[in-house]
């Protein structure tokens, strides 16, 4: 028997995390025209920051000697499990801190990274960011204090002290969806504001935008601060949900998964990005169920994933070349203008 509630919570949790990535990617790539092939760099950085803060800091505050029992060893993991079930206030406090820190650190990292490279063509920006993702992964592999190739285990899920897995999962889901909602509201408001208009103008023609007084590199970097920050938060949410991080979780494939989401959903619309994330995470979650029927299938289920995603992408793009949801003009301007025209006539 399939556990439907458990499946739903698991799916929606993955959906919330990936939707944050997709919405921010639609803001930076679909709307502002920064080709970000390095989404995983910021996602991974956020995850590792979350992992470090939620283990080292938690242990240190609780008086465990992190040099003798570092969190990537069995002693450290056992100590973490004890603390996380016994001291809810501390766990929640450290978790909140980790969310804030990963937003700011990842955001600043994104800003400092893009400000110098944003002046070159968008293709080069894409590949530079792609490389950054890979370089960061190389750094994680070679850093012993984050567990090297094995990564870290036992990152406490902040609601684990509730005792009932389903309840703590549900609380965590609510938190993730709240952060997704925040991301969506910020993105949507930016889109409807004069800033959104400026971003679209830069995407259309950055030389002309420069001639119209827009400080293009600065505006792009600022947007990148915001989107990278939210990606970092998504990373922290992910690390605490799966309770572990390791370098293999942050391969380039993650980036292109998010790209597939916004291509299917419509890259210029945050709603489209959310729909894309909903579809693709559902496929990702269903595939393990199919794979469990391995012995009854006439083929290996391993290759179903690329087949499914490729098929959906092809069908959607034939029918809707700009994705399921194409951009709509901001509501406010239209209504205000119509009002003024009515007054004039």
């Amino acid at each position, binding site marked *: 028997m399939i556990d439907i509630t458990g499946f739903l919570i698991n799916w929606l949790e993955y959906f919330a995390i990936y939707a944050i990535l997709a919405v921010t990617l639609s803001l930076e790539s679909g709307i502002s025209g920064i080709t970000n092939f390095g989404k995983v760099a910021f996602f991974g950085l956020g995850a590792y920051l979350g992992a470090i803060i939620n283990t080292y800091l938690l242990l240190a505050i609780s008086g465990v000697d992190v040099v003798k029992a570092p969190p990537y060893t069995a002693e450290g993991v056992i100590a973490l499990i004890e603390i996380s079930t016994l001291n809810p206030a501390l766990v929640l406090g450290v978790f909140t801190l980790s969310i804030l820190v990963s937003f700011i650190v990842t955001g600043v990292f994104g800003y400092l990274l893009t400000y110098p490279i944003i002046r070159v063509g968008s293709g080069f920006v894409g590949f530079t960011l792609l490389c950054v993702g890979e370089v960061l992964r190389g750094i994680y592999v070679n850093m012993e204090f984050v567990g090297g190739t094995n990564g870290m285990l036992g990152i406490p899920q902040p609601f684990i002290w509730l005792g009932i897995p389903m309840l703590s999962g549900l609380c965590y889901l609510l938190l993730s969806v709240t952060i997704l909602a925040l991301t969506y509201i910020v993105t949507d408001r930016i889109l409807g504001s*004069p800033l959104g208009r400026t971003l679209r103008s830069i995407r*259309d023609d950055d030389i002309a*935008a420069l*001639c119209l*007084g827009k400080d293009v590199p600065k505006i792009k970097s600022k947007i990148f601060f915001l989107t990278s920050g939210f990606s970092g938060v998504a990373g922290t949410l992910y690390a605490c949900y799966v309770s572990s991080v390791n370098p293999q979780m942050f391969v380039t494939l993650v980036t292109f998964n998010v790209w597939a989401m916004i291509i299917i959903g419509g890259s210029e619309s945050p709603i489209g990005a959310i729909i894309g994330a909903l579809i693709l995470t559902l496929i990702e979650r269903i595939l393990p169920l199919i794979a469990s029927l391995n012995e009854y299938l006439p083929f290996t289920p391993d290759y179903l994933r690329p087949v499914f995603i490729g098929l959906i992408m092809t069908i959607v793009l034939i029918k809707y070349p700009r994705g399921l949801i194409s951009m709509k003009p901001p509501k406010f*301007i239209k209504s205000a*203008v119509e009002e003024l025209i009515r007054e004039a006539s």
Partner: protein
Amino acid sequence: MSKEVRHILATRNVSKYFEGVKVLEKVSITIPEGGIIGLIGPNGSGKTTLFNIITGFHVPSEGEVLYRASNEFIRIDGLNPHEIYRLRIVRTFQLPRLFHSLTVIENLLVTPVGQRGESILNAVRWRTWLEEEKNLVKKALGILAMFNKLEIAFKYPAQLSVADIKLVETLRGLMANARLYLLDEPLAGLDFATARRLLNFIKEIRNSYNVTFIIIEHRIDLLMETVDYVYVLHNGRLLASGKPDEVIQNPDVVKAYVGE
């Protein structure tokens, strides 16, 4: 004694070399405020390069560009294009560059610099920019109404005629309160009637706002009806300058255009 003319822009001995090729050589021009100045010359004579230097896309190899910002001249060579725009100098391109995913009214609304709603913090709180935005919308509609073009407000550039695209490009400057317009071949691709209409619009804008135009144009017949003064460039050098009638009869200019 003649009335003293206020100048808005001057270049002094501006030269530009690209890897040893002299594109401009010691070009000095002065632009009176409120004038419509023509800049003509055969292909490759350096007209667009001069525009690029004035608008900050190129740094001159030699010489300086002076601009009267308020009451005194400041050097503007070496500034970035967006900084030069903030001094209220607006240019258009040989090929019109409207933003294709923005409607005409948005193309106008995007031009004013320093809008409140352009910072991330203000953008998410729409109350901070709503008032300003309404005023800008009113202004943009007023500008379109002045040229009887209200009906194109919600059209995308791809739905416009070439003449309208060129007009909107010029109107963008009006929206941004420009003082100096640099128009690069505004008449290219227009038929006679439309080209005249656009030139009339330009005159109208000049007369009502006392702004200055510098126009690069190959259609000299039409241009000469409009401009007050003409500079002729040839092989990167200033060949002649003067009132339209004088220039057109200058044997050097004729030679440069049609050969011996």
